[in-house]
């Protein structure tokens, strides 16, 4: 009797089978790994710099001690200028790269909190990419652990990054180079000139190869 699992296993290439034998999908696959969720507690909102109004919320927090709000022109010698986005902040693509501490994801690096050192992924990025391509070919990609090479991660990441690229939004456009801006009209002129070229050559021949020509171009 052939269950769906065994019939699937008979179809898969040995490379995927050995991977699944080593990292069983019921423990390691992206579907069963718990995904991290954005924390919605007010304290984390105040500390996270990716929230829309981090400075105002922290300013209000600071101002609660004092009775009045600070003047916007109060010089602050400790002000550090523009804050960089928090690299540990939540993002949908990072949420995909969650790992289960009991069964470390072989596609992700992890930190040894005792020594403070990072341990590289068990399976390197090159092999990950090969496995993902192979799994996608046999339609079993969801059985692989979550990783940077997965189709889902790449799509999420592209959606995030797509918003960051100037000129890609609706109604946006970039100035571009002058040759790009004028290309359309120049090509139109050329096309028009080439349409009229046989007639111009006929006229030119008729008028004694330029002897009776009146319309000379300006330099």
């Amino acid at each position, binding site marked *: 009797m052939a269950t769906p699992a065994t019939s699937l296993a008979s179809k898969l290439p040995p490379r995927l089978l050995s991977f699944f034998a080593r990292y069983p999908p019921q423990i390691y696959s992206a579907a069963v790994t718990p995904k991290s969720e954005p924390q919605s507690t007010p304290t984390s909102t105040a500390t996270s710099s990716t929230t829309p109004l981090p400075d105002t919320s922290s300013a209000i927090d600071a101002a609660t001690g004092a009775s009045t709000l600070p003047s916007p022109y109060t010089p602050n010698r400790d002000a550090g200028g523009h804050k960089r986005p928090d690299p540990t902040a939540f993002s949908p693509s990072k949420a995909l790269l969650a790992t289960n501490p009991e069964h470390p994801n072989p596609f992700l690096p992890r930190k040894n909190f005792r020594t403070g050192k990072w341990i590289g992924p068990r399976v390197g990025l090159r092999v990950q990419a090969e496995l993902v391509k192979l799994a996608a070919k046999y339609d079993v990609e969801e059985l692989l652990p979550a990783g940077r090479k997965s189709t889902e991660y790449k799509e999420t990441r592209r959606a995030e990054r797509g918003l960051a690229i100037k000129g890609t939004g609706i109604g946006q456009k970039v100035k571009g180079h002058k040759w790009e801006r004028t290309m359309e009209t*120049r090509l139109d*002129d*050329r096309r*028009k*000139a*080439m349409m009229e*070229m046989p007639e*111009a*050559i006929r006229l*030119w021949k008729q008028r004694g*190869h*330029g*002897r009776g*020509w009146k319309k*000379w*171009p*300006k*330099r």
Partner: protein
Amino acid sequence: MAKKSKSRTVAVRLISMAMTGYFRTMIRPRTHRPLSMLKYDPVVKKQVLFLEATKGGRNK
């Protein structure tokens, strides 16, 4: 002191009439009529009409 005499020949620019911006430079006698000829334009990859460009808009 006598005025410096003009040279017998002039260098002229023959502009492609395909509006590609391609041109050829030629030398002709000053007294000759303006040059015009069919020449190859590599931008449109065809033989097109080339006409002499006037410098001040004066051509006989």
